[in-house]
């Protein structure tokens, strides 16, 4: 007991330190470690955000709008018959073939269920012209940047056409459209850039000139009240 008296100060100081460490200092150290990891995550988040804002700032707004407008014409967001008709008309004129018949199979009337996962519809087309012209038409269709593909083709030489060098081709075209959701996800999600292949294709599209939209002239509607 007497010997223990000599160690009073030491024992008390150890107990005090142990008590304070267990109830206060340990928690502070854990909080410090958490803060360190939060700080690290914050730095990583900042790096992602800086990279993203630099990428977005580097895009030219005007050319981006132009590119999107052209792309919406080539690959509409919804089933577009007008654009298709204009393109087919242009290609048939260039190839000097005449379009005899067009049949559309646009599918069901649009509803949420039918919109999902359906990105094309079929068009049946009958054209007439010389074999060379029909061939040109097909080559121009293939080289055309419009979003359709030849699903099937049948070339016939009818008896009436024999000797005249004319033939008739029945085509089935698959016409594509693409609805893009405008949900972007989290703000830290990086911008996915175009691949080299996509950039090459986009460059080809930039040479397309969009057809001008004619606005109807202002036609006077007359008196609103005929008894006036």
């Amino acid at each position: 007991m007497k010997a223990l008296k000599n160690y009073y100060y030491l024992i008390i100081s150890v107990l005090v330190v142990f008590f304070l460490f267990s109830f206060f200092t340990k928690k502070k150290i854990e909080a410090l470690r958490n803060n360190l990891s939060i700080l690290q995550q914050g730095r990583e988040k900042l790096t992602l955000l800086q990279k993203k804002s630099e990428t977005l700032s580097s895009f030219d707004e005007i050319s981006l709008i132009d590119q999107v407008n052209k792309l919406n014409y080539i690959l509409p967001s919804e089933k577009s018959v007008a654009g298709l008709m204009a393109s087919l008309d242009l290609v048939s004129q260039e190839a000097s073939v005449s379009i005899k018949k067009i049949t559309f199979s646009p599918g069901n009337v649009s509803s949420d269920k039918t919109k999902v996962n359906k990105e094309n519809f079929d068009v049946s087309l009958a054209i007439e012209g010389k074999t060379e012209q029909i061939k040109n038409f097909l080559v121009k269709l293939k080289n055309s940047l419009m979003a359709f593909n030849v699903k099937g083709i049948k070339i016939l030489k009818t008896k009436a056409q024999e000797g005249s060098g004319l033939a008739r081709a029945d085509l089935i075209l698959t016409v594509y459209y693409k609805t893009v959701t405008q949900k972007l996800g989290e703000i830290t999600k990086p911008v996915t850039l175009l691949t080299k292949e996509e950039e090459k294709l986009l460059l080809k599209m930039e040479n397309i000139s969009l057809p001008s939209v004619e606005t109807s002239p202002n036609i006077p509607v007359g008196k609103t009240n005929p008894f006036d």
Partner: protein
Amino acid sequence: MKGINLLEKSVVETKESTNIKRKTTVYSVVILLSFTVLNLVVFFLANSYYKKARELNIEIKSQENLINSLKDREIKYHVLKEKMVFMTKIFKEKIDVGQIIRFFEDLENQGIYLNDLSIAASKVTFSAMAKDSNTLSLALSLFIESKQGKKLFSEVKLDSLGQDKKGQYNFTISLIPNYYEGT
């Protein structure tokens, strides 16, 4: 003379006890001081990280505001990217009908008269007329043996063959094109 201790026992014990007390006091002070220093370090680090975290949050907020101001641009680019991915896929799948038709034009140059030609994604079928058996063999060999025929078609099948009164051969051939990868 060794072993002789002229001091009283109690005096010797007090001296030892004082030494021990001195040492333990020093140790206690060292422990307490170390503990205090540790707490001070923790306190200053916590303060420093708190300041850094505050500055970092301000920078993050600023970047988020900048990105939100460019949201329109981001949406447009997103639409562009999605559609270009789709367009690239369509372009890869475009059937080169022109190449097949050019091949059949060569057939006509060899004396085969084409009646009709049907090209679909999985099958090409045509019916034609050959003036004699040599011309018919030539037609078949063009599909089976020629470089262009092998490049375009993987399978050749004679579906029907008949001879008319004039000795001309009417036949139908179906082919599997090489762009068709099957199911």
